[in-house]
């Protein structure tokens, strides 16, 4: 996993004067499952198309296996692409679709037949040789598109939102299928998606992109647990993001209360962004009619304080049952908190709200106004 297989150096690309990629630098290691993740228009597909050779960068170089392939046409690259909406050749049967690249390379008939069998077995569609693409379901067509690409033994498989057109259940099945394929083939996968769940499930490395910039590169765990900025925190999973002040190391103030946290090195009295995942917020129901200072109230406060010296009071304003958990909105100090809990708190319940210090994520506020605008626009 150490070899740099692909190196994108200072890639810039604009369409009709709109900057799509701005000085993008990224390397991809051998046998990595790398996902380019971001909202539409973030430049992820353009990056993939530059890798595939369908777009030429305005400036910058694409290095593949030590050689500069920036100016190489797609048919001369050792990469194969699985396109959005499959892009099968509708006038050919499945066998001819899969054999397309091999026939171009003038492989022997025996070799081609073997490869077709092998590829169909790999994607669990044995016996489909003479079927026409139109007669296959979306999921099956997608598998054929993958089979058609991998018979050419590419070093890298590029996948452009391949599961986008499939329904939820099929999409989940195909995610496992893709991981299995990747492990069996032992090649590099570069995957483009706007679906954070897909990215988290399958990737070794996730590259979060927005407006032509890379926002964060890291393992799925890194990206989810340690988002580097408000955009990443907001895009990956649900988050509560609010302004706060870092009083000193391991102490942050927001919504008028001071909370213990684990972050250090932000300085003193520094404005920061605070991110708390909805599943990390803990609610404690105040007994009905309990006055502030009463014994019942105090026992509730001490439960909250056991978790974190800081706590907030609020009222549950919304409740949705989501299957595994309840999704609630809690109004507190004019801010709507999103809370996930397996316990039910009815609408109207007064609650104390606290969070484990470890689960408070502190982020620097964007420095320049530009960055801030970018972050806010997409929230």
């Amino acid at each position: 996993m150490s070899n740099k297989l692909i190196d994108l150096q200072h890639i810039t690309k604009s369409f009709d004067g709109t900057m799509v990629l701005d000085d993008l630098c990224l390397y991809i290691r051998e046998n990595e499952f790398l996902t380019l993740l971001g909202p539409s228009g973030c430049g992820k597909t353009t990056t993939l198309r530059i890798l595939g050779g369908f777009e030429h960068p305005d400036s910058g170089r694409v290095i593949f296996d030590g050689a500069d392939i920036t100016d190489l046409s797609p048919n001369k690259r050792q990469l194969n692409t699985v396109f959005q909406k499959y892009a099968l050749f509708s006038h050919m049967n499945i066998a001819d679709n899969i054999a397309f690249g091999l026939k171009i390379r003038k492989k022997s008939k025996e070799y081609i037949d073997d490869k077709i069998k092998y590829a169909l077995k790999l994607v669990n569609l044995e016996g489909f040789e003479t079927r026409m693409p139109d007669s296959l379901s979306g999921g099956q067509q997608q598998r054929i598109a993958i089979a058609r690409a991998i018979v050419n033994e590419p070093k890298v498989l590029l996948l452009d939102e391949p599961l986008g057109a499939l329904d939820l259940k099929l999409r989940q099945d195909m995610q496992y299928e893709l991981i299995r394929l990747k492990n069996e083939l032992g090649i590099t996968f570069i995957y483009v998606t706007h679906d954070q769940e897909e990215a988290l499930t399958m990737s070794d490395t996730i590259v979060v992109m927005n407006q032509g910039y890379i926002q964060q590169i890291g393992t799925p765990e890194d990206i989810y647990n340690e988002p580097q900025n408000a955009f990443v925190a907001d895009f990956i999973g649900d988050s509560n993001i609010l302004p706060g002040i870092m009083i000193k190391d391991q102490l942050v103030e927001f919504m008028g209360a001071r909370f213990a946290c684990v972050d250090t090195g932000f300085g003193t009295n520094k404005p920061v962004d605070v991110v708390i995942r909805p599943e990390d917020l803990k609610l404690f129901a105040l007994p009905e009619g309990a006055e502030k200072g009463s014994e019942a109230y105090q026992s509730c406060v001490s439960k909250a304080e056991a978790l974190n010296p800081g706590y907030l009071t609020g009222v549950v304003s919304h409740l949705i049952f989501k299957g595994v958990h309840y999704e609630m909105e809690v109004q507190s100090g004019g801010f709507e908190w999103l809370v996930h809990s397996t316990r039910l708190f009815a609408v109207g319940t007064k609650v104390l709200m606290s969070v484990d210090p470890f689960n408070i994520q502190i982020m620097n506020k964007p420095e320049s106004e530009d960055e801030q605008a970018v972050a806010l626009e997409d929230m």
Partner: protein
Amino acid sequence: MKKHNGLINGPYLVWTAAFIVIPLLLIFYYGLTDKSGHFTLSNIAEMGTPERMKALWLSLILSLLATFICLLMAYPLAMILAKMKTAMGFIVTIFIIPMWMNSLLRILAWQTLLERNGVINQFLRMAHLPEQHLINTPYAIGLGMIYDFLPFMLLPIYNSLLKIDSNVINAAYDLGANRWQTFWKVTFPLTLPGVISGITMVFVPALTTFVISDFLGGSKVLLIGNVIEQQFTQVGNWNVGSGLSLVLMVFILISMALMNHFDKSDEGAAGIL
């Protein structure tokens, strides 16, 4: 099929009966009877005269040639149009609009150009070059056919090109095909339905035309369309006219059957590959 509502289909059925089925039956009736109404095949045998065979032969050659040249011209043009961005598309549209004008007018325009004292010969005279005998030749008729029917080849090919997902073309490049291979193995086969309807839409009217040969062939060059027309309008023998039409209809049916066959065989397997 769902059972259709008779009331909604009514006008269509009346139309079909009045303008398609009944005229067709009349042609069959006239074509297979003599003046006194008795059954005969002699109207069909009328085609056998050398003069008419020559007209039929010339019609077939000219319409096949015109179809072929239309295809050669329309396909690249359709490809250019399909790739065109909107701004450029407007300019091209201006060039293409004349194609959609009344075909009679456009043939008349060619007559003016090609005539003995027409625009081209006047120009040659001014340049002190020998005058050319252009009008009333099979070449003039062929030219008229190509000019007249090019849009009918262009449009179906253009439509089928537009329908191709650009990623399908990209997939062919991605799998190692160069431009030439991609065209012959992917683009062309995918537009074959358009090519086939284009061929049908050019070949059939070209084979049966009498207007183009009237204006550009004078009475010097007769096509089978003219021969049939004369039977109806000048000789007044509807029986022979219908008999000859039936023969022509056989050729049209054969050509359409051939086209259908190509269309189907392509669906079954990668025919061209």
